[in-house]
């Protein structure tokens, strides 16, 4: 392994590492525009020039591989001057429209100018004009005057989404980033280009002009959009939701996890948060009277619902549950206990097979749109769609007196008359969920749960990786996490679930369910942990395979 010296720090790094990577290991940040660790290295922007002893010219740190004995000066006068000049060159034709640019505050032109630019501007010529505010796709707007031609977005479309919509046209300082003629940037991963664009050339149509980034708070979470469980950050605008059409979530951003999603997320996941502050959110428990929902307090609602369940139990009639893999492990574990201990039912399906086969690919997007099917299975739920079909048949045959449905809209998985025929035969349908849907409309009681962004918990992705989600915004007033709803409901039957935080539930899971052995919220960290089978981590082979999928 080569030993090198960077700005006086000596370190030994792996063969094949580049200077920029080695410097990072030594805690030295070298500026970069075109370099992105998830993309091919091209050495185009030249902002990372450093001085290397015995080499006559400055070298780009992103492309130069370390060699034993190399002595690198990141901050020699010569290197500093060159980087300053590259920055000055980048601004020669830049419009500097920061006041109206969404990137301001997270822009690497602004950032580096403050760090090491600070030159006296010499440029007095007219700037070149290029296209502005071009909607290049459903999610992305391009301002090519702001583009610094780092080609990160081009490489993303070539190498990651493999759709090649973008290219650089023309030459010299007339070079311009644009979609190829007749193409739009509409691949399932298109908005990642916004994240990797170091400047305000590519911005999100959804986020555009809504909030200044310095008003945003960031919370680590996991995307609930499919079984992959891509790591994300939830950016919230709690202080100024009125600037954001009343939405508290401003945007989702991918969060690096080499074991799951690398640097990327899909567009379905990215824009899948809109339901959180949607009009369909349920803000109070509801009871149906004369065909109309009436709001009522939680205490009243729990009393009524427990009354209905009690009547059924006392008369020896079946109370059945349809759980959901949208729920966290904590929610599901509380549900399992409620089923087992209160209702004495052990057979709880969670999966509704959609009528239309959902989109999936061999990169991140999985057919299973639930974030926690694997978790449900490990916690003892029946994740086969057939189990749900059987439950509906039982309903149709009049064998179910009370049915508690979590989240599902059955109409997405069954024909309309099939659902109606089944639910008609059920005496009381209790719906627990965050948003009203056509199935909820048919329920007698509705209990509002909060969304994934409003609670702590864990999801287990398809590969068995248990990952933590965190409360980014407070639960909408009137809504509760399912585990809390179940705790309170159990209380009505004199069962005590001694949980005060989601973490208490998780501790219990770890104690009782072998797959979760050795885990804790703390141990899960930012990247999650793999569940174990028979005391061993789930097959490495499976995980390896997943890795190659992610890194291609």
């Amino acid at each position, binding site marked *: 392994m080569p030993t090198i010296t960077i700005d006086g720090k000596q370190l030994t790094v792996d063969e094949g590492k580049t200077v920029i990577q080695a410097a990072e290991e030594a805690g030295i940040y070298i500026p970069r525009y075109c370099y992105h660790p998830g993309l091919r290295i091209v050495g185009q922007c030249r902002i990372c*020039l450093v001085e290397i002893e015995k080499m006559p010219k400055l070298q780009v740190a992103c492309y130069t591989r370390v060699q034993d004995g190399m002595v690198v000066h990141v901050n020699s006068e010569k290197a500093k001057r060159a980087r300053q000049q590259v920055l000055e*060159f*980048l601004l020669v034709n830049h419009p500097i429209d920061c006041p109206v640019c969404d990137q301001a505050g997270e822009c690497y032109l602004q950032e580096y100018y403050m760090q090491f630019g600070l030159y006296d501007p010499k440029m007095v010529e007219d700037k070149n004009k290029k296209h502005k505010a071009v909607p290049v796709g459903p999610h992305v707007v391009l301002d090519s005057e702001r583009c610094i*031609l780092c080609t990160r977005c081009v490489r993303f479309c070539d190498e990651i989404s493999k759709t090649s919509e973008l290219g650089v046209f023309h*030459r010299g300082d007339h*070079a311009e980033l644009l979609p190829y003629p007749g193409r739009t940037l509409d691949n399932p991963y298109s908005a990642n280009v916004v994240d990797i664009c170091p400047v305000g050339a590519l911005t999100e149509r959804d986020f555009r002009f809504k909030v200044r980034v310095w008003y945003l708070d960031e919370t680590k979470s996991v995307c609930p959009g499919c079984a992959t469980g891509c790591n994300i950050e939830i950016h919230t605008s709690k202080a100024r939701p009125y600037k954001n059409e009343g939405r508290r979530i401003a945007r989702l951003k991918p969060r690096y996890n080499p074991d799951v999603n690398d640097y990327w997320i899909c567009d379905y996941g990215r824009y899948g948060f809109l339901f959180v502050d949607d009009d369909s959110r349920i803000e109070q428990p509801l009871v149906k009277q004369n065909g109309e929902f009436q709001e009522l307090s939680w205490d009243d609602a729990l009393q009524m619902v427990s009354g209905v369940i009690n009547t059924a139990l006392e008369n020896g009639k079946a109370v059945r549950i349809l759980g959901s893999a949208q729920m966290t492990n904590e929610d599901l574990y509380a549900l399992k206990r409620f089923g087992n201990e209160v209702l004495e039912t052990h057979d709880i399906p969670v999966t509704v097979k959609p009528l239309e086969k959902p989109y999936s690919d061999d990169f991140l997007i999985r057919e299973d749109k639930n974030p926690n099917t694997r978790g449900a299975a490990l916690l003892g739920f029946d994740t086969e769609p057939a189990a749900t079909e059987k439950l509906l048949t039982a309903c149709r045959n009049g064998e179910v007196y009370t049915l508690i449905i979590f989240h599902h809209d059955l109409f997405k998985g069954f024909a309309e008359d099939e659902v109606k025929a089944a639910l008609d035969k059920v005496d009381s349908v209790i719906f627990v969920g965050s948003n009203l849907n056509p199935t909820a409309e048919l329920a007698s009681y509705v209990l509002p749960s909060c969304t994934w962004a409003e609670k702590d918990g864990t999801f287990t992705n398809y590969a068995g990786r248990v990952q933590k989600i965190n409360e980014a915004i407070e639960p909408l007033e009137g809504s509760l996490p399912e585990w809390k709803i179940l705790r309170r409901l159990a209380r009505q039957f004199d069962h005590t679930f001694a949980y005060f935080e989601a973490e208490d539930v998780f501790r219990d899971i770890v104690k009782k369910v072998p797959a979760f052995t050795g885990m804790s919220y703390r141990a899960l960290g930012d990247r999650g942990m793999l569940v174990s089978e028979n005391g061993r981590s789930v097959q490495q082979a499976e995980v390896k395979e997943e890795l190659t999928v992610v890194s291609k």
Partner: protein
Amino acid sequence: MAETQGILMPLIQSECQILKNYRDRGGYEAAKKALSMTPDEVIQEVQSSNLRGLGGAGFPTGRKWAFVPKNSSKPVYLVVNCDESEPGTFKDKYIITRATHALIEGIIIASYAIGAHTAYIYIRGEYVRQAEVLEQAIQEAYDNGILGKKVLGKKFSLDVYVHRGAGAYICGEETALLESLEGKKGWPRMKPPFPAIEGLFRCPTIVNNVETLAYVPFIIKNGARWFAEMGTERSGGMRLYCVSGHVNKPGVYELPVTTTLREIIYEHAGGVPGNKKIKAVVPGGSSSPPLRADELDVAAEFDALMKLGTMAGSGGIIVMDEDTCLLEILTVTTHFYHHESCGQCTPCREGTGWMDKILNRMLSGEGRIEDVDHLEEIASGIMGNTICPLGDAAAMPVLGYLKRFREEFESHALYKKCFDGEFAELKAAS
């Protein structure tokens, strides 16, 4: 083209695009000889001849060939650079249209030496008629068993293809050329890997200039020593000088590389019209820094010119008489590099355009004295900091003109006119 001396010039003058004419002058004997040698012996011979790349960089040709990995499992390619676009350079054109078979013979020998069975000739798009002549000569070679499955009846196969460029100077840079040849946008590649290791289609590839290859048959025929002795210790033979600008007889002259600029200009190119004095001479294509009239007793050769801070480059000598406005010259030159910058890397993309704008403003009489320093700073910011040497090619003239003729530019900035020798007094008075 009055000369009959030389190596390639006699071929050019006797229409060696026609096979018979070339054969009458002993054509293809060298290839036969080379094919009976081992590839290593051929490389050794070329190396000893001190033949250096005549496309501009002057890299020793034999040494370059030796970089190709032996027994590569991938195919090896020879690529002939006929993009000839450096302003002031017009020699390859004569070779491909008049000494065509010498080039083909050079291609055969080089391919054999490096183990290539496919050669591509990348020719600039503007050379339309020239490409036709080249194609005809190649066809004639195929028809006569000189190319194809059995080259000259020997156990060596070689196919040669002509590929026309689309009119970009940058596609003369060898890695941009390879990208273009692969059907991509002509953006130079990062190095390493160098083409000899990973070139066309990621296979070992040697890129050589037309003129470089055209000399190879004669080195094989007459021996390395014969070629080396014409030149200096490190640079062999003769080369084709393209003389243009203010001379009485502009044209291509083939002379030993030891010939001085003064001899070339005055003894061969007929001196300056109207016996005017020389103000500046660009010795090796428009990217080479200019020399003053008192610096012309230097051999027009790689190492000697390098010592003076300029380059022998592509052999394009541009002569400017005393009445030439150097601001105009530098503006035109800079405009060319701005126009031809591929736009891939920041300093060249933005710097060339910026310098072009400043120079044009100065030319229109809007110059400011600080522009002179700014130009120098911009050029220094480009120099050495780019992906390919086009950035340097754009920076060197700016730095070069300002180094040797700064007063010309200051005069334009201060007085909106060319320097007339009274600058010092005026400046002092101002």
